[in-house]
């Protein structure tokens, strides 16, 4: 078994046991990136210092330092996060080559836990999109079918993990940017409770919705990453001061669970649309049956205001984004375009923003500026905030009837590159299942539910829990993962195309 096919937790164990060095593990992943990333294009930047960082961890370990469970394990980082020594562009031309003078809090926590940053992953520009097609640096490709999207905005992180270029990655989720890519690439992704993970150093899209979270190939690995990056950060005022339980412990408990007796699982009626792709609908209901067969009580719940979620989201997000993106004006950092013949500072700002932002970014800045304008504020931004409150109430009453809620993680499997790029509304609707959790600030997990019979592509299931109850996601997610893999006889991602010469899975054949 190649080093790069192993999970983060197993690599962590091997590293702790001295069976392998971080330099070896890191080199294996760098080799894999070199072999497949020309096709996948998950990375915008590969960390030239990765092997040095790995060597430093090896040295710490050989000096007898007690290290965490993922010390020495490589990780890919979404380009929305600020990283010392590596460009951080958020997928935008306007930040091309910008190297921040500081690490995002989550990155600093990874480094101090001994994880090795492999590089920065591709994304839709400023996390605006569901396909990575809005990246200024070209789209990423889905490892299951290179003609298809890997989801977005965090398609790069999901593709990197699904293509075995990295065992784990960080993403950010504003309306589904972790969960939807996980769903369409057959990986696991978690959007924590709002405030559970620091946003300091995450280039803001919509401050009241953004949340950083883990991407991985199994539930336990996401939990291990979450344990490292989570917890209060005094630099983020919206960061919760809660003491969090170990999510890895919750995942292990879930994986070992004998039965789901007493667990109430709510199916959100409004998110179980017959309009969703047939294979998505089928695999989702098979997963429900499996849960029920193992003792879970399946209840139907209704969230009547979810109908308005996408509309409210596309007012709140652009409004906040229009303000958050105002700082990209060429004065202090990033691209500067001087208009022909020079001009005033306003002319330079305008020329820079015209050249530096892509169409989708401009579209949302214009939308948001309009929504916040005097005379329109109450009708648009104000009403959207009211919808948000109603959605929070829907969740509150749903959680009175169920411990967790479930839905398909995305309405479809991965669509073809170019298919929806000229239809923004169709693209926006792809997030219909994931957006409500962001509006309510609750945690959500996307994990594989199988392959759709009609196209053989991954289908994802979403689990949602009440705010601060992230541990429930890991516990139930790990149980469901085990039940499904027991049923299939293998992991879903073991069925992904190998992409590279050498047939990485030659030794372990199996059918879905």
């Amino acid at each position, binding site marked *: 078994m190649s080093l790069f096919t192993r999970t983060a937790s197993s690599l962590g164990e091997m590293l702790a046991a001295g069976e392998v060095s971080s330099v070896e593990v890191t080199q294996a992943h760098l080799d894999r990136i070199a072999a497949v990333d020309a096709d996948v294009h998950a990375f915008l930047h590969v960390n030239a210092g990765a092997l040095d960082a790995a060597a430093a961890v090896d040295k710490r370990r050989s000096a007898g330092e007690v290290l965490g469970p993922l010390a020495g394990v490589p990780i890919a980082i979404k380009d929305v996060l600020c990283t010392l020594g590596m460009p951080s562009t958020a997928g935008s031309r306007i930040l091309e080559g*910008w190297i921040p003078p500081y690490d995002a809090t989550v990155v600093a926590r990874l480094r101090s836990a001994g994880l090795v940053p492999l590089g920065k992953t591709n994304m839709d520009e400023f996390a605006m999109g569901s396909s990575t097609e809005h990246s200024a640096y070209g789209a990423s490709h889905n490892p299951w079918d290179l003609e298809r999207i890997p989801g977005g905005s965090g398609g790069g992180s999901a593709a990197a993990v699904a293509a075995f270029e990295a065992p784990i990655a960080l993403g950010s989720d504003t309306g589904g940017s972790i969960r939807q890519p996980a769903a369409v690439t057959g990986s696991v992704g978690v959007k924590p409770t709002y405030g559970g993970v620091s946003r300091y150093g995450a280039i803001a899209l919509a401050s009241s919705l953004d949340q950083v979270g883990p991407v991985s190939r199994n539930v336990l690995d996401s939990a291990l990453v979450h344990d490292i990056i989570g917890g209060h950060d005094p630099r983020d005022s919206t960061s919760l001061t809660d003491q969090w339980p170990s999510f890895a412990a919750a995942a292990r408990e879930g994986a070992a669970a004998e039965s789901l007796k007493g667990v109430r699982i709510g199916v959100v009626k409004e998110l179980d649309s017959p309009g969703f792709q047939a294979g998505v609908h089928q695999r989702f209901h098979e997963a429900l049956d499996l849960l029920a067969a193992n003792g879970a009580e399946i209840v139907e719940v209704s969230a009547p205001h979810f109908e308005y979620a996408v509309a409210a989201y596309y007012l709140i997000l652009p409004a906040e984004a229009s303000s958050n993106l105002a700082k990209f004006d060429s004065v202090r950092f990033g691209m500067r375009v001087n208009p022909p013949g020079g001009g005033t500072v306003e002319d330079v700002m305008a020329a820079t923003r015209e050249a530096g932002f892509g169409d989708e970014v401009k579209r949302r800045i214009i939308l948001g500026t309009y929504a916040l304008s005097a005379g329109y504020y109450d009708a648009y931004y104000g009403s959207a905030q009211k919808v948000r409150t109603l959605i929070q109430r829907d969740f509150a009453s749903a959680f009175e009837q169920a411990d967790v809620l479930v839905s398909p993680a995305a309405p479809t499997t991965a669509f073809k590159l170019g298919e929806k790029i000229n239809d923004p509304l169709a693209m926006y609707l792809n997030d219909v299942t994931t957006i409500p959790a962001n509006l309510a600030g609750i945690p959500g997990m996307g994990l594989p539910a199988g392959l759709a019979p009609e196209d053989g592509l991954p289908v994802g299931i979403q689990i949602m829990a009440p705010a601060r109850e992230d541990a429930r996601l890991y516990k139930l997610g790990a149980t469901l993962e085990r039940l499904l893999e027991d049923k299939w006889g293998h992991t879903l991602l073991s069925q992904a195309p190998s992409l590279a010469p050498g047939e990485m899975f030659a030794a372990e054949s199996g059918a879905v």
Partner: protein
Amino acid sequence: MDYDKALELFEPVLGFEVHVELNTKTKMFSDAPNYFGGEPNTNITPVDLGLPGSLPVVNEQAVKYSISLGLALGCSIAASSRFARKNYFYPDLAKNYQISQFDEPIAYEGSVEVELANGRVFQIPIERAHMEEDAGKLTHVGGATGRIQGAEYSLVDYNRAGVPLVEIVTHMIVGAEHDAPELAKAYVSTIRDIVVSLGISDAKMERGNLRCDANISLRSRASVAAAVAAGEPLPLGTRTETKNVNSLRSVERAIRYEIQRQAAILDAGGTITQETRHWHEDTGQTSAGRPKSDADDYRYFPEPDLLPVEPSAELIESLRLALPEAPAVRRKRLKSDWGFSDLEFQDVQNSGLLVEIEETVSFGASAHQARKWWTGEIARVANERGVDAATLISPKDVSELVALIENGDLTDRLARQVLEGVIAGEGTPTAVVEARGLKVVSDDGPLIAAIDEALAAQPDVLEKIRDGKVQAAGAVIGAVMKAMKGTADAARVRELVLERAQQ
């Protein structure tokens, strides 16, 4: 137009926005030092530069200071107040939005008592006091005026970006009439007294710690009379907002100027443009700034990076209990403590130097000496130079000067020379006395020698004194003072001469 004529035709309506920079250790939303002198762009963090990914964190001390100020202004303190983003593009504004407060300020609806030199007392209605961050500082290079128009390029220093501010906004102030300029000055002076007494700001106007934007509009007496007769609401004229008013003196002058300017335009049938005006200290005039319409759209919305500010009732009460005496109460107490007549105390009030005089007294000077020097010689020099008296010398130095006078070490004439030295930066009064050799000679030896010499030159003087013509001593005293180059105490010389006559 002549000021009296302007007031005959029009009624002035005032409004003020005073910005107070708080003297907290760190900035409003970052842990950078709250200090904006020095090398440009050194007291900054990623937050102050608005770097991507950076986030603000509210300075707790600034919140406490703001609450104290709100309480001192007689305001209600909001149980929950919120920050909001004020969106506009300007290169001194790192994020291209300012974190301020909009519809939920920390303090609202208060009142401040202001007393004028003529004894009139006004209650100035306070609409709100809210927290916000300062912007960076632009320096326009090239071009004649140092302003943005005509500049070749501009430099920006973000050391000031994020300095905590409280903006105090008044309601409309009517009824000041002729006293409008003086009221403006007295109001700003009162705010200054309040923040100084709270210890929350350095409150130096010339350094921009305290900044006043003065709104003024005129309405014609005829239109007011017509509205009253018709039972309609009183009309309001178009207002201007004068900025860059950097001293108490300028506040008064700027209001007076703007009343006259607007009156002349209106009287000639013209209209006032709603705009900001820039005050020029040198010419004593205002010039047009940018147009300012009520429709300026800052697209305010609640700042999603910050939680609402929710001070506990206990905190508010503890800050209320810790408030120093209100300036109006304090004025009454000081007047009585110091034993000043109405006229003397008004003199102090009018000078705007109450705080300085009080501090001088606290260092041990007598109230009368403190008043005499601050409102006399120091004010005279300040007036000559067109600066605020408080910028020339510290209360500690004035108290030292007074002590030297009261010990008999200095005469008033010598003290004026010492003062000149202190103002010129030569050191403390004692140091100046040493360096310039100005000390009064208190040892009688050299005096007696000088008297002997003077008497030898004017032998008839002692006779005249003995004959009862005591004023004849003046000639000798004058000669002695001259010989001693002013370092002699004239009273002592006189005593010695009279003693000699009796021998």
